[in-house]
């Protein structure tokens, strides 16, 4: 039952956040806004506490099976293993961060904003837990609509275009995935006579007996398309810079921190185990796509003058490592990919919060108009430095561990991929340091008067940095948890 809470708590909070707003009438701001902020914050923290308690004391895996749509054999079944748990914890943490990041910035229709935020979180948690493919598709799509509203209503100048672009890209991928799920369901049903969407049953579909290699490949590509758009893989990433840049801070935090991770999670959990042969055949292409993403994202980030767009493009680069790691078919690479996803969620979530805080204060994201911020606002500058170092993968930060493990794994399967991916680290140095230098050092280009980070913001960012350091300095803690994933997903623990 405890698993249902991960979905139920955000859902209840979403309705609560909306209800308090409605009852307070059209005025919105003020107290009703505060109530909905607190409702969402409490909901996220409750999920975080729940995840932490399972992490510390839990015997994994935990399952929940509940009948749902009997006529087609779909059930409400959730399952929690070592792969889901760190992402759930991340979702609780970043959910809270998103609320805090929008504490000042969002002043219009506050209750509806938090309704959408909570609903997105419910969908994300559902994605990380679902062990029934119908339920998974349901949750997968569920997170889109509220996210669309978050970007479309509260975003920056180009929000309408960015929101539609985001929605159409992800939905096209999602529909291909749904088509593939339906195809797998039909193949399983017609070959075994048992019509079911259950993950463990579909895992045992006699694929080679029912489907030709071409069909297997097509179905696998359907899944891959859905996940690759989200991740995003090179070629399908066009929505990302726009959506991340135009979204409000909370939206960017959730997008970069969590939504992208659902793509990598989906590959590890579904695309590869369900179609092992087709995935293995496809692996080289996927790895090269990853490399292309690493280099392209890095080069694009080098040339940006918009700070938020720079961070967004760096995400394309960092998530390329994830793609390489997952498809290296190597335990080290897979472990690295998971660590990379977690650390990227933490560091980029924090960076987006920082950029948002900066924009709230000085009214621009243009690097050319910044400069000298470290002197004017020391706390902002210090945290900016730490996060920049995380962005370029300094040892001690989680990102370093993730990238290094990915490179180990990649090297074992293809040296060329590893070498070119390693080049991405060099580019990362360049764009990260350039960003820091332009924004925080030097003389201020314009004179402004603004406050340093508030105590709440400093604490939040501090916590994120602390977790990032913990992952970086003691990766064994996370690796031990990942090793509790269902067999076959990751592989054994590595040195």
């Amino acid at each position, binding site marked *: 039952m405890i698993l249902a809470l991960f979905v139920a708590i955000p859902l209840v909070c979403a309705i609560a956040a909306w209800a308090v707003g409605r009852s307070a009438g059209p005025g919105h701001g003020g107290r009703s806004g505060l109530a909905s902020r607190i409702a969402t914050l409490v909901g996220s923290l409750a999920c975080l506490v729940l995840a932490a308690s399972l992490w510390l004391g839990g015997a994994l895996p935990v399952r929940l099976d509940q009948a*749902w749509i009997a006529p087609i054999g779909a059930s409400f079944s959730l399952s929690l293993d070592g792969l889901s748990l760190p992402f759930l914890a991340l979702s609780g943490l970043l959910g809270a961060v998103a609320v805090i990041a929008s504490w000042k910035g969002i002043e219009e229709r506050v209750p509806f904003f938090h309704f959408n935020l909570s609903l997105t979180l419910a969908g994300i948690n559902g994605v990380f837990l679902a062990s029934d493919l119908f339920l998974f598709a349901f949750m997968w799509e569920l997170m889109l609509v509220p996210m669309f509203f978050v970007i479309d209503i509260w975003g920056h100048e180009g929000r309408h275009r960015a929101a*539609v672009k985001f929605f159409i890209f992800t939905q096209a991928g999602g529909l291909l995935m*749904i088509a593939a799920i*339906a195809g797998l369901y*039909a193949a399983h049903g*017609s070959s075994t006579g048992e019509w079911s969407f259950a993950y463990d049953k579909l895992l045992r579909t006699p694929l080679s007996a029912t*489907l030709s290699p071409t069909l297997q490949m097509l179905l696998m590509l359907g899944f891959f398309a859905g996940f690759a758009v989200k991740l995003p893989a090179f070629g399908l990433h066009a929505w990302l810079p726009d959506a991340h840049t135009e979204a409000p801070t909370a939206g960017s935090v959730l997008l970069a921190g969590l939504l992208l991770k659902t793509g990598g999670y989906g590959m590890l959990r579904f695309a590869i185990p369900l179609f092992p042969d087709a995935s293995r055949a496809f692996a080289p292409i996927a790895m090269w796509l990853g490399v292309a993403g690493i280099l392209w994202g890095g080069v694009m980030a080098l040339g940006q003058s918009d700070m938020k767009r720079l961070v967004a493009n760096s995400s394309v680069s960092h998530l390329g490592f994830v793609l390489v790691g997952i498809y290296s078919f190597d335990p080290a690479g897979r472990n690295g990919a998971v660590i990379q996803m977690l650390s990227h969620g933490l560091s980029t979530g924090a960076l987006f919060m920082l950029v948002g805080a900066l924009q709230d204060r000085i009214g621009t994201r243009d690097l050319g108009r910044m400069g000298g911020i470290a002197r004017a606002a020391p706390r902002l500058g210090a945290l900016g430095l730490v996060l920049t170092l995380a962005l370029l993968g300094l040892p001690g930060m989680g990102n370093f561990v993730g990238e290094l493990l990915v490179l180990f794994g990649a090297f074992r399967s293809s040296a060329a991929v590893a070498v070119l991916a390693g080049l991405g680290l060099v580019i990362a140095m360049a764009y990260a340091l350039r960003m820091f230098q332009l924004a925080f050092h030097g003389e201020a280009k314009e004179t402004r008067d603004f406050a340093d980070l508030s105590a709440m913001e400093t604490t939040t960012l501090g916590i994120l940095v602390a977790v990032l350091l913990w992952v970086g300095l003691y990766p064994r803690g996370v690796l031990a948890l990942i090793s509790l994933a269902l067999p076959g997903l990751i592989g054994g623990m590595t040195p």
Partner: protein
Amino acid sequence: MKPDDAFAAAPLIILALACIASLAAVSFAKRKARAAFAVCAIGMALALAAAFALSLPMMPRRIGDLLSMDGLSLVGTTIILASALAIAIVSRPYLARREGERGEYYALLLFASLGASVLAASSSMATLFLGLELLSVSLYALVAYRRERAEGGRAAFTYLILASVASAFLFFGMALAYYQTGSLELQRIIGAAADGSGGPLMIAALAMMGVGFAFKLAVAPFHMWALEVYEGASAPVAALIATVSKAAMAIPLIRFLAPPILATSGGDGASSFVWIIAILSGASMIAGNLLALREERVKRMLAGSSIAQLGYILVALIAGGSYGASSALFYLAAYSLSTLGAFACVAAISPADGDASRSDFRALATKRPLAAAVMTVSLLSLAGMPLTAGFMGKFMLFSAGLGSGGSSAGGRAGTATGILAILLAFNSALSLFYYLRLLSLMYRGPAAEAPEAKKGREAAGESARIGPSRSLLAGSILALIGLSILVIGIVPGPLLGLISSLAGR
């Protein structure tokens, strides 16, 4: 006619009696509109109740060669009557505010739903044609109903001419089929066509009948009338065309096309069926979405969307079998409910001097939260997003389409549905573009009015355009539609179970 037959046909009999009663009400009652509305609403509700209480226990039952009262007809009748009832209720405040509420409107609604119900239960060409004409003739009058508006007349004329041509095609096809088989029974005609014993004349007959059906369903390339007619008709009547008329035409298609495709898929006769429907389906999806994409006017956009939606339903028809049939029925129900919701919202927020345009949707979320919420849910359901009925519907279509590819009955039907499933995925993504555009508009802030325009209006002494109507009954129907879309979306099991058990009967 035996008493059992009467029980089985009870919904049709009640509707026919209500038709007569409504004519009497229009002629003799004091407050004509009110009396006719009462007769209409009560008649439809009674017929709906009779369908489940009296008719269901007798099923399946054939009444002569004319009607077959079975699970399919029951599902069809339910969709038809529930939609028509909702439309009648929504129409009241809509018409009252336009000083156009006359009793005849409700009488026509009754006739249209009687025709549609007969169509859904028809098993012979005679009843098929009778039902179709009853439905069409009522629709001509309903489209033209508001005489003071020129668009209505123009739309009605377009519809009249084109629909008569389509009816003529259908009729001619029927005559040829009758000449070839010597039977009016649809089952035998389709059987003869599927095993190829009819010869070339039979192919011509089927093609002509196909044109008639495709026209009424507004399936591409016979869809051009839809935009014009939806635009010209008032919102409730457009809803009637989009839901009742299409559901009525889809039921016979499901009944007579699904079995031969399943039975003989791979055979030559059947596979040409499959490819023809596949091409119609793909063309509708693409044409409908492209039309809707370019459309600035809301009702025309919904028309384009419903052309595309019918294309989606055809995917399940090609899949065939009982799974294909129940998928098509489920999608039909979800589609009808969502379309009804969308049009009911348009009707509810329309100002008195015309139907709602895009600008009326701006900032709807703050002006009319209920209408905005129902419109949101309906559009998302049409787009197939989760938590709404449309998601389950789309999933059923995918699994029906790809299921026939994976099963042993695969062959060419499998290839066709495989391609269609991919088309379906991309078209759904494409359709999001125009659904989202409207959605996004509803949640924006109000537009700033140009100062000159405001001044001019103040000078002329008129207040803002006369506001839209608010009626308790219509409001609760709106809420009910939105709620049902959500409930079916979250717990689709019961409805799905009901439909698949009925589709098997």
